[in-house]
């Protein structure tokens, strides 16, 4: 199956048809495309190509290579949510002020709302959907459940992605440090103390994150 996406319909009337196509691809699993075939199509080192209406990019999302034709104005967040169906990454403020859209770009926690998708041509993106494999939860996801590190759940994927990065960065040595380094992730329900407990537990147990 090919996973060429077209995110910029020349006119909205074609959108319905395209949507059906996209949706059927989601259902079938976008991840099943043979990687080599895709790599042949557009290598990152080629650079993205296109014009003001559309740009062709290639990037890896949760381990799968994607070739996509997009509106250059599309943010990475928009690409994930609207085109790839990865709605686990949340839009909270859209201005880089809440952290709900946090994903890992080449291993670094990043706000997907403040970067254009085109800029991520050649990048490796990990979203909440790619954090764990199969039915197994990541240790921090388990800890969030155990410590009730959320209520409404909307900031949660961002908190988890940021928390994992916080531990990997070596910034989870104490409650105070966690609080400071997690301050980019707002939670309006006020689950902060439980989130800190979850992160500290995973860090202290020395679990692989």
């Amino acid at each position: 199956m090919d996973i060429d996406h077209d995110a910029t319909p020349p006119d909205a009337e074609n959108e319905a048809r395209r949507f059906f196509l996209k949706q059927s691809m989601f259902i079938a699993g976008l991840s099943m495309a043979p990687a080599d075939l895709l790599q042949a199509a557009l290598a990152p080192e080629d650079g993205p190509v296109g014009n003001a209406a559309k740009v062709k990019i290639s990037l890896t999302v949760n381990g799968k290579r994607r070739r996509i034709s997009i509106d250059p104005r599309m943010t990475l967040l928009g690409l994930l949510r609207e085109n790839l169906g990865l709605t686990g990454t949340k839009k909270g403020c859209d201005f880089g002020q809440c952290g709900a859209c946090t994903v890992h770009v080449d291993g670094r926690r990043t706000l997907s709302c403040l970067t254009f998708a085109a800029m991520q041509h050649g990048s490796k993106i990990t979203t909440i959907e790619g954090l764990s494999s199969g039915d197994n939860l990541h240790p921090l996801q388990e800890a969030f459940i155990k410590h009730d590190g959320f209520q409404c759940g909307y900031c949660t994927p961002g908190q988890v992605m940021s928390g994992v990065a916080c531990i990997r960065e070596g910034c989870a040595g104490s409650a105070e440090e966690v609080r400071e380094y997690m301050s980019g992730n707002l939670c309006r329900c006020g689950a902060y103390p439980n989130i800190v407990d979850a992160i500290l537990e995973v860090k202290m147990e020395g679990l692989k994150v």
Partner: protein
Amino acid sequence: MKPFQYLRPKTIAEAISMAADDPEARYIAGGTNLVDLMKRGIASPTKLIDINHLPLKKIEHRYDRLRIGALALNSEVAKHKAVVTRQPLLAQALLAGASGQLRNMATVGGNLLQRTRCSYFYDLALPCNKRKPGSGCGAEGGINRTHAIFFAGNGFGGIEKSSCLAVHPSDMCVALTAVDTVVVVNGPDGERRIQMKDFLRLSTQQPELDTNLGPGELVTAIEVLDNAFAKHSHYLKVRDRASYAFALVSVAVALQMDGGRIWDARLALGGVAHKPWRYWAIDLMLRGKAPSEQLFREVAEHEMESAKALEGNAYKIKLTSNAMVAALKTAAGIS
């Protein structure tokens, strides 16, 4: 957001040639400010030149200075050994800014160029001389609790000469203003080196310009000159919440001390002017003296004589003075 053409140059020369002769072109690196501005319709480039893949990420100490590539990430700079040991003030200031995610995206060059967070600048429906020259300053007579108290240089001139009351939002720039820093830029006419004090502008003229960068010029590096401040420097940031907020007031202090006396002193303030405000006279006032709260109080109040409050920010006079005292005490190691 207006449609734009996305470009990704492979070399600095290619990037500069893409921008040359096109006033509508913009370089983009971390994007943490520019994407925001584009979303709100404040910046509308027709050409976006993604410089992230240019070889400008290096952080190294050479001869008498620390050279930091313009594309070095704020988070990388803050934890780099040469920065932490030689310029801890810079590391502290970087870590006081933004969030873990933003520091992972924002570059040194972008941080230098970030635009004010004044809410009038951000709202297209409100007047702003910086966004739309001649439309008026919304903050004048408006909500100006977070706005400037220092205006023209060295206390001369004042509010009446300032067409923009906004403050510069960067923490990093406050630290770089306190110590000796050179901004290296490259452009259609070749490389230039600009002293940090001359890089950012006050708002007496053309408030739409934040910096003295020429058309098409690209920041390629900063150089922080070696100094003897590492043991006695402190960055204090006062804000409305404990983290992830812009400064109401911030203070970067760097002292050189020996035998219980101060031999060199630098101080810059953030959140009080259109650019980080360097307290030029402080060295003269502290040199050769033993640190004490009373001395610091006198010194702080001296500088505040040239400050002028707006309707909503009278508190900043006292707060800035107090913050200077607190930061000086910490830097000097007295309680």
